[in-house]
């Protein structure tokens, strides 16, 4: 075990996989000698050479196009998109190509070995172009997996599993935790399962569901609610796609209430899918409507960032409303 922050845990996972599999390659804007603008890829070029860890020209559509080709050839590309806000030029390559490669070829070719890493989320005074949480855009696209870790331990285990999984994975890293979140991380190799939610805290009155950096928010709100005698179950979804409806439904059947929290705008955010599914699967168990505590339906603000955030206070208020319903 070692104390690592989230960046170190990711770097550690990358070293692990690059040592093990010489087909693994890490690339993106500034990821080479410099080690990436957040330094997640520090020292990889020194350790594994310029052929396996390199800067690309500044073109997200090119990075993912290149990665798709490399994956279909049998290499193991780990591509970085510098900010999730800049993933959209690659949207076509991801949604029409990465995700449909295996299907359209009847399984002859695929991008199964591809992993796309990208920092996402707000709370860092980044404004509308350094704060977005675009998971829902990709969750509507069959063929991709989407994974979000909540801390360094989760990050290493989930990233190793994502890289080795034979499906393309979009691995979204909560950047406000990069240095802020520190935890014990085993130095040896381990994997955490994809597609499985994680019950972070058991409780009986309401299920609080989220992912990534928002898990901390849920924890704070749960602590506030506890003062009122409310027992919250906290579930980290971890995989947005495919998502673990079963664990969520079981939790809701137990608590009778569900609150979902995400930073992305409310409308069409992934909470809507969860609410739609759970109201169907748990109709007779629900004692109140599924509550969504999300970003506003606006671009991500700068001056009003605090006000925009689905923070612990808004979450706590929604817990109270849901319990009083």
């Amino acid at each position, binding site marked *: 075990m070692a104390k690592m922050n989230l960046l170190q845990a990711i770097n550690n996972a990358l070293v692990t996989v690059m040592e093990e599999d010489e*087909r693994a*390659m890490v690339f993106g804007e500034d990821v080479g000698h410099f080690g990436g603008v957040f330094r997640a890829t520090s020292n990889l070029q020194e350790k594994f050479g310029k*052929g*396996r860890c*390199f800067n*690309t*020209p500044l*073109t997200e*559509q*090119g990075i*993912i*196009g*290149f*990665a*798709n*080709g*490399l*994956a*279909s*050839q*049998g*290499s193991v*590309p780990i591509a970085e998109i510098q900010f999730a806000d800049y993933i959209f*030029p690659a949207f*076509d*390559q991801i949604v*029409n*190509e990465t995700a*449909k*490669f*295996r*299907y*359209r*070829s*009847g*399984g*002859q*070719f*695929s991008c*199964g070995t591809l992993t796309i890493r990208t920092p996402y989320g707000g709370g860092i005074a980044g404004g509308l172009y350094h704060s977005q949480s675009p998971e829902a855009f990709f969750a509507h696209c*069959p*063929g991709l*997996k989407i994974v979000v870790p909540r801390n360094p331990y989760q990050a290493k285990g989930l990233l190793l599993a994502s890289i080795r*999984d*034979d*499906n393309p994975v979009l691995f979204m890293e909560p950047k406000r935790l990069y240095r802020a979140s520190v935890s014990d991380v085993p130095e040896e190799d381990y994997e955490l399962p994809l*597609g499985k939610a994680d019950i972070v805290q058991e409780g009986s009155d309401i299920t609080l569901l989220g992912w990534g950096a928002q898990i901390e928010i849920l924890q704070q709100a749960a602590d506030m609610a506890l003062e009122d005698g409310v027992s919250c179950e906290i579930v980290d979804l971890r995989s947005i796609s*495919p998502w673990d*409806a*079963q664990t969520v439904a079981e939790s809701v059947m137990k608590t009778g209430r569900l609150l979902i929290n995400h930073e992305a705008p409310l409308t069409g955010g992934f909470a809507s899918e969860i609410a739609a599914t759970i109201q169907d699967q748990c109709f007779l168990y629900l004692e109140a409507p599924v509550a969504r505590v999300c970003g506003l339906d606006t671009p991500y603000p700068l001056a009003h960032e605090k006000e925009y955030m689905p923070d612990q206070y808004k979450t706590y208020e929604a817990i109270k409303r849901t319990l009083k319903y």
Partner: protein
Amino acid sequence: MQDRNHLAQVDTTHQVHIIENGLIDIPMLQILKPDGTLHEQAQEPDIDQETARKMYDTMEYIRVLDERMVGAQRQGRISFYLASTGEEAAAVGSAAALQPQDMIMSQYREQGALAYRGYTTSQFMNQMFSNQKDPNKGRQMPIHYGDKPLNFMTISSPLGTQIPQAAGYAYGQKMAGQDAVTICYFGEGAASEGDFHAGLNMAAVLKCPVIFFCRNNGYAISTPAEEQFAGDGIASRGLGYGVKTIRVDGNDPLAVYAATLKARELALEERCPILIEAMTYRLAAHSTSDDPTGYRSRDEEDKWRLKDPIQRMAKWLQHKGWYDEQANKTLVDETRKEVLSALKEAEKVPVNPIEDIVSDVYDKVPAHLQKQVDELKDHIEKYPKAYPKTAGRSK
């Protein structure tokens, strides 16, 4: 850290110096005259009779296949087709210069390259009927072929996406130390996509052994080349990327062959990309959904009919004494018959059973898709008449 100087190669001038069209001249390689004889200054590529005959036969084969399939579409037997008439030399001449281990990533009008690799008439038909013998499992519209054993990447409809992919594929080949390159075909229309820019630039910077082969056939559906770009074709872009570039007469099979041979050699030796621009003309309609009389004249087409690559090669073969009139007639007749019977055969093969509707989305069928297909199967059982292709069948 070593000092960098991005001005090292730059000269200085003291007058406003404008770089513009016409500054370089990009001539087009032509080896055969339209009458099939060699240009005086041209060198015949090193090509044996067998290869030459295979090229020729493949072009003839594709011409017949195209013609028959356009017919089949008109009869309503298939939903869609897209012919390469007039452009056969571009695909076949280049494919002939490659090795089987080279990956082909095509746009959609390069059936000649696939046929040259050995794709059979039945295989063509199975794809076009989306039946269960299609290795792509009937998932795409007709002409979106793909065959892993032949190193022919499954075609994707969105234009240009294969261009950066080809750079990546070739990079992977290089890293794996393979004696192989990737060839990437696309039209001059597709070359307007952002992916073209990304692909060529990345290939140049990352030194990928890839041949970018542009068929400049004058049109992108109805849009003429002059409304597609204002530079000197696609070749003039090579310079901007620092990519070695060759322009070739796309209707001259020998020139295409020679250019591609050279390109492959350079790509492998120098581990670098090469751009080939093949100047040709889409004699066919864009596809069976298109009617070119809406945007171009018969007269214009006729001028290009005179540059027919098949005729040109036939004449050259005659000069060489490698042409066999009778064998050729047999080939054409046999192909017609073969197409018809393969078509009838493929028509009868059922589509994949319903289970396949959820396969290959992921490596394994995840729980939510298993549930969706199970419910669908129950539903089909209730309404068998509404789903005649799959009702009553199971895997």
